[in-house]
């Protein structure tokens, strides 16, 4: 009787997530007994939890290949493990930069870290799940935690507004997604993606119901990654949210949503490829172009980065459209790269938040080279990387994505994508102009907390290392190819 629901092995598969859940609860409880001055210990607790989970994940990786559990609802293959490592890295970096920022904002509480960890658990299940119900619940766990985190600054109207927009549109999109899921279930009689793929393959290729399912799923999922035309929430949420949370949601949840999309489209909807590739191609072109062109006119660095992040989602869709080994490796390596370069640049934005200065206008960075030469140079490296200029990591990521669509003969897409990359130089270099070629407007220097310094050091080293010697990282990213099995 016992075996029907549960096997001891199941616990093993989700051991890292169990640890994270324990630590999430632990942070909340420990926080109750900490004085104001000792709140920084919360960050330490969370970091320890992540380190422990990473170690558990590493053990899992070296033990076995494909771990399937919970009646095949969960598949912890190397694709999932790879993305979990990306999430863990991103989350750890975000926690490093959070402590100082939260104390400046006066909201230094333990539930912040607990929510981040919970969201991390949600993301981990998003890449592990192969059953639509599991995936949906994981997605909601991640999303609900984020809604709260975006509105975490209770006294800040902008933060509240951002949270409200994010929540309403997010809930709406989840509804649409759920509709698509139910249609798929109706067609195939199963929620297991592999079974769905089999059933879909048996049906005629131009099945209207299947098409509706694809369209609704695409709409729901595009919202999560900020694809045009479901991107409007993104700049507002990025601008209003606490900068550390923006750092977080611009990287980890995006990667998780993309991994989810890969799982659904490459595994479950592969038989319908002919119907979703054209849809996604259009979305991809719109996303890149609109993101880049709108970014040109932004004067707020947070909004600029938000639109740039929309454009990056567009580049990433190239990998999905190609749907081949190059594309999947490309998406995988891109997120690793993106985690470092984007967190790096956001860390600097976070560091610019000082006692009496919000520091989110591009103009606030005027003459940064005179005041904080180190920070200016770091910013330059991250901007170059975002623009995809070698020898930074961003180039390697872009290279893979562009190569993937060329391999599948989508030449027009490739040309539009590279031209977009050229356009993006314009606004990235606008920031450079302000930093390097304008006179300084104030004398205020940045003070960098140890956490911020650590985060900057890590992101810088990897942004350059992946750019100059990408071989080991590519091998690592190729783990994600287990998606095709």
């Amino acid at each position, binding site marked *: 009787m016992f075996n029907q629901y549960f096997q001891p092995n199941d616990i093993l598969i989700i051991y890292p997530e169990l640890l994270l859940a324990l630590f999430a609860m632990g942070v909340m409880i420990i926080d109750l007994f900490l004085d104001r001055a000792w709140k920084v210990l919360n960050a330490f607790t969370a970091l320890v939890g992540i380190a422990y989970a990473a170690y558990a994940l590493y053990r899992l990786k070296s033990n076995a290949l494909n771990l399937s559990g919970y009646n095949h609802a969960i598949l912890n293959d190397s694709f999932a493990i790879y993305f979990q490592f990306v999430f863990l890295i991103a989350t750890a970096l975000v926690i490093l930069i959070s402590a100082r920022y939260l104390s400046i904002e006066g909201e230094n509480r333990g539930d912040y870290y607990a929510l981040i960890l919970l969201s991390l658990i949600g993301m981990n299940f998003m890449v592990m799940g192969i059953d639509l119900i599991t995936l949906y619940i994981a997605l909601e766990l991640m999303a609900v935690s984020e809604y709260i985190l975006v509105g975490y600054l209770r006294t800040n109207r902008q933060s509240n507004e951002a949270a409200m927009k994010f929540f309403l549109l997010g809930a709406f999109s989840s509804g649409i997604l759920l509709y698509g899921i139910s249609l798929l279930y109706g067609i195939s009689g199963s929620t297991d993606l592999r079974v769905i793929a089999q059933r879909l393959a048996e049906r005629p290729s131009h099945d209207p119901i299947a098409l509706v399912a694809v369209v609704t799923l695409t709409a729901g999922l595009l919202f999560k990654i900020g694809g045009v035309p479901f991107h409007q929430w993104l700049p507002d949420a990025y601008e209003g949210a606490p900068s550390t949370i923006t750092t977080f949601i611009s990287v980890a949840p995006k990667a998780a949503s993309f991994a989810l999309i890969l799982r659904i489209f490459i595994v479950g909807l592969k038989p319908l490829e002919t119907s979703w590739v054209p849809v996604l191609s259009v979305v991809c072109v719109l996303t890149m172009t609109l993101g880049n062109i709108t970014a040109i006119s932004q004067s707020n660095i947070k909004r600029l980065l938000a639109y740039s992040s929309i454009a990056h989602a567009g580049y990433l869709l190239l990998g999905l459209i190609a749907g081949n080994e190059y594309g999947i490796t490309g998406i995988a390596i891109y997120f690793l790269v993106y985690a470092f370069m984007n967190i790096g640049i956001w860390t600097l934005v976070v560091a610019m938040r000082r006692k009496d200065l919000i520091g989110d206008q591009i103009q606030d960075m005027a003459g940064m080279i005179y005041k904080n030469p180190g920070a200016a140079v770091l910013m330059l490296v991250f901007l170059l990387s975002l623009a995809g200029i*070698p020898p930074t990591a961003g180039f390697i990521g872009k290279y893979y994505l562009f190569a993937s669509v060329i391999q599948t003969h989508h030449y027009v897409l*490739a040309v539009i994508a590279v031209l977009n990359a050229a356009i993006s130089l314009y606004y990235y270099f606008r920031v450079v102009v302000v930093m390097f070629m304008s006179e300084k407007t104030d004398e205020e220097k940045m003070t960098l907390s140890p956490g911020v310094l650590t985060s900057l050091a890590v992101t810088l080293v990897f942004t350059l290392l992946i750019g100059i010697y990408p*071989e080991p990282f590519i091998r690592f990213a190729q783990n994600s190819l287990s998606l095709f099995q």
Partner: protein
Amino acid sequence: MEFFNSYILTLLILTPVVGALVLALLNKEKAETLRRTAFGFGLLTFVFSLHLVARFSSGQSGFQFAENHAWIPAYGIRYHVGVDGISLWLVILATFLTVVSILASWKGIEKRVKEFFIFILLLEAGMIGVFLSLDLFLFYVFWEVMLVPMYFLIGIWGHGRRIYAAVKFIIYTAVGSALMLVAILSLYFLNARATGVYTFDFPIWLNNIASNRLWIDPHIQNWLFLAFFASFAIKVPIFPLHTWLPDAHTEAPTAGSVLLAGVLLKMGTYGLLRFNVQLFPEATRTFTPFIITLAIIGIIYGALVAMVQPDLKRMVAYSSVSHLGFVVLGIFVFNMQGVEGAIYQMLNHGISTGGLFLIVGMIYERRHTREIAEFGGLATPMPRLATCFMIITLSSIGLPLLNGFVGEFLILVGGFGASIARAKLYTSLAATGVVWGAVYMLWMYQRVMLGEVTHEANKSLPDLSGREKWVLVPLILLALWMGIYPQFFLRKMDASVSRLLNPPIVMMVQK
């Protein structure tokens, strides 16, 4: 010595990078130390590059001093560098002009000295890398890397609308190189599909094309050709893609203009010769009339526009459009004289236009204006400068016994002997460019240097300083040497050029 021979190319690329790192560690207040260090590293790189000349074996047509190491083996990306008769002199040009421009910036650059020299050295590394790369991925990396230092050189130390010029420069170039990336990747996959080997290696691609293992449909070839062409034509710049050039050249600081005109423009023509012509033989045939037409328009248009420029530096910039038109013409006539003349003209242009920019820079440092109308009779207070200016002007015009003559002459001879339709008409039109060149250059010289001193401010300008002599004299000596004894330079090109012109091309990579 053995070590030196086998790693000389890497040394050439790395020395400036090391120099930049050393500069980064120095105190930014000690300007003189910074200048000396930068000069030292520049000179060291130049000396290393002379080693190439000494050890280069003229009879070999393949790549020499080659180094070939795995870089990203997962996708067949290699660190493969080598030098042949085509790239040899361009590398020397780059290292030489870097030394010259460091010297030339000694007084002109007073703010942010440290960063300036760091960017100059990084730019040098990028330029050398572009000429040496034999792996297309590596080539693209260097091609892009070079953009950033140049952007800063124009944007920080430029004049007037410097930020506009810098952004225009980077966007133009980035658009072109983005298209090139698509073409490179397409070739990569085409080659892999045909031969099963994933590689970006240029000699291997050439071999496959020559032996017909890699056959590219002419239709696809045309597109790929155009993608490469877009990137190189912007860089050259070929009319009508030249509009970034006057802005960038005019607003850049002297050293920036020298390197931009002297070396960066040559990357475009080098790319056309190395990649377009060799990788896509059929497409080259298709587009030759079109490109030659553009080149001739460029020659005449550049000359005419240069003639009416009120700004000295802008005039020199437009003269570049005209001169580079000659180079493109020389490449696309496909015979020994034409191609060798084109390469030779690339070197000449580097020296003479570099020299012109230096002199304009020196005049600007004294008068803080570049309006031709502001000058007149400068020869009276500055006789030595006037002499140097005269020689370089004549070299740019192409007076016999000076370098410009050899290049233009070879190109025109090549043009008349070319086996393409209407070759004589094309070449005659191009030859008028020589006349136009003489007209605008001499007219400009007359207005600036000769006659009475009309402006009070010009009466007491100091003549060349010792350092400035050191900058100009080597250039003049080179111009004379190249004009009187071109064989020294041409001999080293012969083998590579004739191999390029005589398919079937089988590349021997010398280890």
